[in-house]
């Protein structure tokens, strides 16, 4: 209303804080309730959104219609009441299922509110003449990340490198030193997680028995004050702030490159901030996020230096400081730092500027050498826990590089596209940039490619035990930049098809990742939690339809070969039919799971990984054990003892079958075995297994198949004293037509 003053944001936040404080004492939910922290934080989050909405409205943004706002409040009240009443509804089974559904409801509400705020913020992007984006573009993702933090951190305790960073933080905060020996003994990790942490294999040990962390101390130093004040929550809030700052800094970088289209920028901003993988990293402690932030800040200042030709000491300090800090976060970030220095030198021009670049390069060199020397002196290893032989491993074949690089984007368990398919749009975006914004493309590639070339050929290219796209996080802001010019024009049919379909899939998957954060941590066995869930429900192998660079298969190569040209074609070829395109895209997204099921169940079984969850063993265990270090080194399989079986649901492709089973024989001590092959209850044949401990392929040709029942492989003892343990890896099934004769006795 004209003349109506909006309430002060401070006042609104104060009210939220008071209500949160009251909720902390008044809520009838125990400390083990997954919603307790969320409901305590909720009044503050709501107040923050109200303040954001008022801010946007005061600057010309479209306010939410009152009825819509009333609906939102009603929905919020409904979900709150559902949380309080859920235990009395009488649902059986795993209570986390219903909790997850309610959480999804809250997420939908959060998404709706965020979308409304984003639309209201559009005028803020249209206002020209700014040197930096408004701080509200920091606050919005900050509030959203805070909203999901309580639920996500409750559902998934610190994992991967996180607890080790946190223990180091704890040691700095309380002991003011980095020796973790006492912290391990005292069980200080119980302050932020449910188990007593132990030192990681290869962690440096000091000359007097000190136990140090392999991780650098810079990030824990930043987290320590907040950790001291508020424990784990305090540390995570700092990470949330860093992630939100990264999103804001990306906008800043876009301004520096003059990539400023309100629609495209807002869309790219939303994709970067509110989808995987950045959303998943927002509430976790990983160095990749601050590294990306430093990279973006440095590059933004480099661009400003180039455009404004401001090359004073202040400018160089703004460029140099983030660059010099990068290797202190993690030594491998020196590659990013080096690329940035080179870029700065390129844009600097002039003798004086080149002198300053040389000084920066020398400083970077000095910092790097200092780190190496420090490690050498204190940890007896310049690389702390890596070795030079490991570096030589980077002389790999191009196929390995390609596999790792493709895996960063396409892998079903760790790839960017598998977690947020909307990022597939970077494919046409790259082509567009080549034609129209070459500088952005070149600068981006120049900064990140050397770093990605380092990580791609590694055995743990996927980042180890971590959320997806870990090593690719530093590239994410640049990919978001690429999307800006692409998304500024979405009027064609094919574009709407792609955007609608990919966005629908992304929204659905984002809800899943927030509700089940544990599903974002996968083992390197060629599958993912989501695919395992589908496979178990369908009793069919869905993983084989998706690419994997940890267990390469046909799909690993087919997906890029098909999707890249398809996305190009769809983006540029159909010129009309925008509305039809959007509808078709949405319908395609809705039908994708059905297509997966169809593909998994209709295509005849040809390759079976015997450790997959859709195969039912009667005994035995997975090989290697779940938490083995560096899993891709091992052939995954299932260890089957005597008199136990694996039952494989089979989609037959004919009446006769050639079967090859790849297995490791039992050792001589264990004794030989017999592999019994059945089709359901019908015995087909038996094959002896020697006790030489070697890997073998057992070929059984021309087995009859009636089409009923699963394929059952059973290990039998060949003598009474034998206790064989056979490692079954894989089975190949080659089908042929032809009627099966009547069953005969076992030869």
């Amino acid at each position, binding site marked *: 209303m004209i003349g109506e003053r909006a309430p002060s944001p401070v006042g609104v936040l104060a009210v939220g804080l008071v209500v949160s404080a009251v909720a902390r004492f008044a809520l009838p939910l125990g400390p083990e309730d997954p919603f307790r922290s969320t409901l305590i934080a909720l009044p503050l989050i709501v107040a923050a959104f109200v303040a954001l909405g008022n801010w946007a409205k005061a600057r010309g943004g479209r306010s939410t219609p009152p009825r819509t706002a009333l609906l939102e409040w009603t929905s919020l009240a409904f979900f709150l009441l559902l949380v309080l009443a859920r235990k009395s509804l009488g649902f059986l089974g795993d209570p986390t299922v*219903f909790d997850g559904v309610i959480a999804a409801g809250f997420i939908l509400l959060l998404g709706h509110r965020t979308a409304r705020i984003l639309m209201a913020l559009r005028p803020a992007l249209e206002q020209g003449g700014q040197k930096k984006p408004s701080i509200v573009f920091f606050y919005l993702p900050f509030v959203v990340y805070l909203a999901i933090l309580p639920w996500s951190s409750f559902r998934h305790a610190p994992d991967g490198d996180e607890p080790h960073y946190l223990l180091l933080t704890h040691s700095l905060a309380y002991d003011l030193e980095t020796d973790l020996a006492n912290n391990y003994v005292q069980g200080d990790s119980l302050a932020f997680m449910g188990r007593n942490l132990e030192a990681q294999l290869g962690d440096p040990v000091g000359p007097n028995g000190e136990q140090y962390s392999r991780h650098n101390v810079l990030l824990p130093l930043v987290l320590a004050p907040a950790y001291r004040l508020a424990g784990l929550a305090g540390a995570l809030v700092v990470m949330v702030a860093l992630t939100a700052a990264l999103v804001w800094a990306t906008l800043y970088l876009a301004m520096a490159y003059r990539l400023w289209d309100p629609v495209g920028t807002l869309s790219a901003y939303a994709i970067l901030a509110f989808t995987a993988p950045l959303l998943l990293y927002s509430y976790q402690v990983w160095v990749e996020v601050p590294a990306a932030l430093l990279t973006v800040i440095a590059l933004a200042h480099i661009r400003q230096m180039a455009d404004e030709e401001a090359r004073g000491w202040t400018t160089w300090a703004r460029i140099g400081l983030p660059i010099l800090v990068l290797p202190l976060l993690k030594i491998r970030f020196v590659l990013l730092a080096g690329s940035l220095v080179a870029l700065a030198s390129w844009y600097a021009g002039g003798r004086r500027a080149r002198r300053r670049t040389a000084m920066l390069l020398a400083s970077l060199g000095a910092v790097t050498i200092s780190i190496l020397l420090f490690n050498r002196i204190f940890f007896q290893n310049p690389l702390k826990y890596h070795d030079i032989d490991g570096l030589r491993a980077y002389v790999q074949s191009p196929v390995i590089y390609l596999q790792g690089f493709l895996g960063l984007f396409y892998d079903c368990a760790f790839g960017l596209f598998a977690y947020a398919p909307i990022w597939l749009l970077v494919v046409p975006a790259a082509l567009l940039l080549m034609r129209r914004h070459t500088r952005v493309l070149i600068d981006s590639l120049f900064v990140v490619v050397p770093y990605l070339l380092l990580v791609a050929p590694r055995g743990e290219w996927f980042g180890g035990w971590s959320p997806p796209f870990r090593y690719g996080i530093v590239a994410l802001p640049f990919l978001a930049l690429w999307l800006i010019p692409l998304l500024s024009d979405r009027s064609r049919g094919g574009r709407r098809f792609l955007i609608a379909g990919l966005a629908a899939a992304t929204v659905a998957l984002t809800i899943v990742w927030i509700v089940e954060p544990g599903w974002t941590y996968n083992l390197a066995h060629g599958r993912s939690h989501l695919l395992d869930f589908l496979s178990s429900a369908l009793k069919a192998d869905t993983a084989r339809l998706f690419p994997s660079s940890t267990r390469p298969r046909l799909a690993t190569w087919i997906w890029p070969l098909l999707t890249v040209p398809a996305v190009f074609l769809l983006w540029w070829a159909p010129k009309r039919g925008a509305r039809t395109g959007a509808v078709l895209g949405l319908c395609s997204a809705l039908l994708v799971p059905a297509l997966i099921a169809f593909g998994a169940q209709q295509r005849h079984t040809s390759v079976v990984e015997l450790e997959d969850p859709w195969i039912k063993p009667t005994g035995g265990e997975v090989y290697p054990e779940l938490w083995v270090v560096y899993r891709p080194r091992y052939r995954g399989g299932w260890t089957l003892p005597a008199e136990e079986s694996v039952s494989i649901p089979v989609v037959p492709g004919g009446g006769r079958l050639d079967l090859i089973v790849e297995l490791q024989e039992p050792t001589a001590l264990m004794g030989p075995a017999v592999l019994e092959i059945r089709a359901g209850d019908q015995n087909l044949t038996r094959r002896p297994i020697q006790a030489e401990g070697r890997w073998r392929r057992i070929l059984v040709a021309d087995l009859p198949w009636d089409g009923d029942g699963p394929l059952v492989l059973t290990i039998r003892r060949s003598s009474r004293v034998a206790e064989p343990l056979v490692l079954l890896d894989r089975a190949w099934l080659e089908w042929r037509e032809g009627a099966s004769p009547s069953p005969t006795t076992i030869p």
Partner: protein
Amino acid sequence: MNSHARFSPASVAVVLAAGASLLLLAAAQADPQAAAETRYLAFWSTAVLLCAAGLSRQPSFELAGGALLLVLGGWVVPAGPVRAATFGLLLTASLGLAIFRRLADHYDGTDSGFWVPAALGAQLLARSDQLLANPMEPKTLFGLVVLPLAAAWSLGLVGRNRGVGAALLIAGVSLVLVPGWSVAVVLSLLGVALRVASPSGAARSWIRFVALVLLVIVAGFWHPSLPVVVLLTTLFVASPQDWKGNAAVVLGTVLALVLLPGVRSWEESLLAAGLILVLLPAAPLVGSDDSRRVMPAALLVAFLAARTVPLPGALAAPLAALALCIPRQGTYVTLQRIWTGALVTGALLLAAYPWLRTGPLTDTLRLFGVGGGWSSVLGVLIGFLVIAWLAEMAQALKRRALLPAALALGALAVATLLQLPSSSAYSLAGTPFVMTSEQHEVVRDLEPELPVGSVVIDSYLENSTSLATGTPVAEVTLDTEDGNHQRWLLRVGIESGEWAARREDVASLEGFQAPPPWLTWLPGGSEIFAQRYRARWNLPEPATATRITIARRPELPPEVGIAIFRLEIWQ
């Protein structure tokens, strides 16, 4: 008038894609029980979303969002009551949002393109159990298509003559009675609609007269007392009344009360009539001429309906008449709309799968603390008065259009909060166990110092149709710290019942009775909804319990099984 086409090919395509995705999931699922449920959910979702598509303009984010979330829920949430309840909520929300947005488009109530999909969608939610039957069966078609169409026609007629607000209010209060569009409700609505439709020309009047006569005849076939209720309502609904008209209604009601056989006691009938005050509390409070005229007549006829007609839908006629006298604007009107909306939402949710409650209106009212009895009626009226007064005070300070609505919703939320049970202290049965003649006892030692206020058991019976209603099947014993024993009986048809109570050969047994279900599910390969039941026993005063024992009665036939799903101790 909105220029975007409704029921567009695009909307239909999205809905069909969602349905196809779920159907394909059903075809692919390995677990037959999960597959059966998924198949049912696929049909149900497609049907309701098609109705929402008929209401939505293009582009419709609520339709697209609803379709996406349903597919996501179907694929990712494990089969069972949680998934089914999620579907019910999503479908109710999708239809509700579509109606809401359509009304926000300044819809004037004259377009049948609104009422038909709205009525169909509501019926599909209220009678979702009928979708399990063969859809081509006449009974299913009649219930799911003919009745809603007739209701839509009536409401459209009312909307054209008295405004969309009145028609929506009538639709809301009629929907919650049974729930859904029953024969009695539809006949009542038809009668009222024909009476209020503006005559334009003698021919139209004759047509209306003939239609009314036919209606009365059909109603008479349905229940002999129903036409009397409808006729008496038509006497006072349409035009200003003088003392002769009022006298006719009073005389007619008295005569009918004397001549027609009673199906409820006088007290029960009075209370049932009081329900119309609970459903339309704005009517007596709004103080308009119309309401003063209509109130006494409506209450009388409602009393007659409750006394002589066993069908809950018979109250629809006096309710509709009362709803027509509520003005189009004002604080009380807003409160009434919010109240009706809340009741409709609750009733539809509880009537739908997996709850399939037989008395969803009663359950919904209980959620808001309206338990029954005249104190509840007074409570609702006083609540309305207080909220209206607060709203008007606040509006006098600063005018905000939606303030009354916000206050009403807030009051409902608080009322629900106050009704929430205290948190369950204990859930003793993680997975169901079946008590048979071999395993005839379950004993659980309780945590020390466990205070107990009530005991809850979710259960069902197998092969119990040979047992008379009221036969004890199990004894529940709670041992307390002071050495006392609280004993309760689990009885057939009262605290528990046959799981297959909906099966025709079981339901048609003479004397067969099952208590209202707590939750239902779809057994694999079955074409009926299985049911389980909840029994709650309260201790006279809270005590500290040490042990609970459930013992199957030894005299039961060996084939009778008692499946205990859940055993809870509440503080």
